């Protein structure tokens, strides 16, 4: 059974204080690993998809990396508007393309 564990559950940063969020996964065949951002009461907003170990993708202050067992979402010099819950999800090789297994998320709060 696919499993996704995100840590920490919650993270509080000062504006400009860089940090990383962790996503550990267990899947017998990984097709893709997804990162989403979710604001309170809203649907998840797509950030990145990673496919193979060593791959990196960047978007503004965010950079996602992937190894064979975990993924990191690095946040460089965060701003208050980066405050949100960040969700990680895996897509199994043998499941439908739309079938994602999510972790519980990391709630990030960036204070000015």
């Amino acid at each position, binding site marked *: 059974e696919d499993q*996704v564990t995100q840590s920490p559950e919650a993270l509080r940063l000062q504006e400009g204080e860089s940090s990383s969020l962790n996503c550990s996964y267990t899947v017998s065949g990984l*097709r*893709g690993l*997804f990162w*989403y951002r979710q604001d309170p*009461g*809203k*649907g*998840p*907003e*797509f950030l990145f*998809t990673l496919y193979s170990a060593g791959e990196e993708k960047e978007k503004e202050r965010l950079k996602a990396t992937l190894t064979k067992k975990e993924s990191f979402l690095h946040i460089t010099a965060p701003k208050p508007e980066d405050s949100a819950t960040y*969700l990680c*999800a895996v*897509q199994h090789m043998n*499941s*439908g*393309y*739309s*079938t*994602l*297994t*999510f*972790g*519980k*998320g990391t709630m990030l709060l960036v204070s000015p």
Partner: protein
Amino acid sequence: DAGVTQSPTHLIKTRGQQVTLRCSPKSGHDTVSWYQQALGQGPQFIFQYYEEEERQRGNFPDRFSGHQFPNYSSELNVNALLLGDSALYLCASRGASGGNTIYFGEGSWLTVV
């Protein structure tokens, strides 16, 4: 270009009642999936529809059913509502021509009292 749209945004139902939630996929997308997100949890896969048929199903009882229409829009039906069905219901869409990106709607908040 409209993204994934869902209706209604909020609704309150009584235990034992039935509810229907609606979803229109992003333009050009033909595959729709539904997820349930309880408070403080990640979304859980319910089922996926493609070419008007249920193609994949998660670990949800038969009280949860769905439908996809020829225009690719979809409905999620839940019968015999339980208090534990209270959650945010998310619709996601994907199109073969759009690569592997899966887009979510804003969700429908269901409260069962």
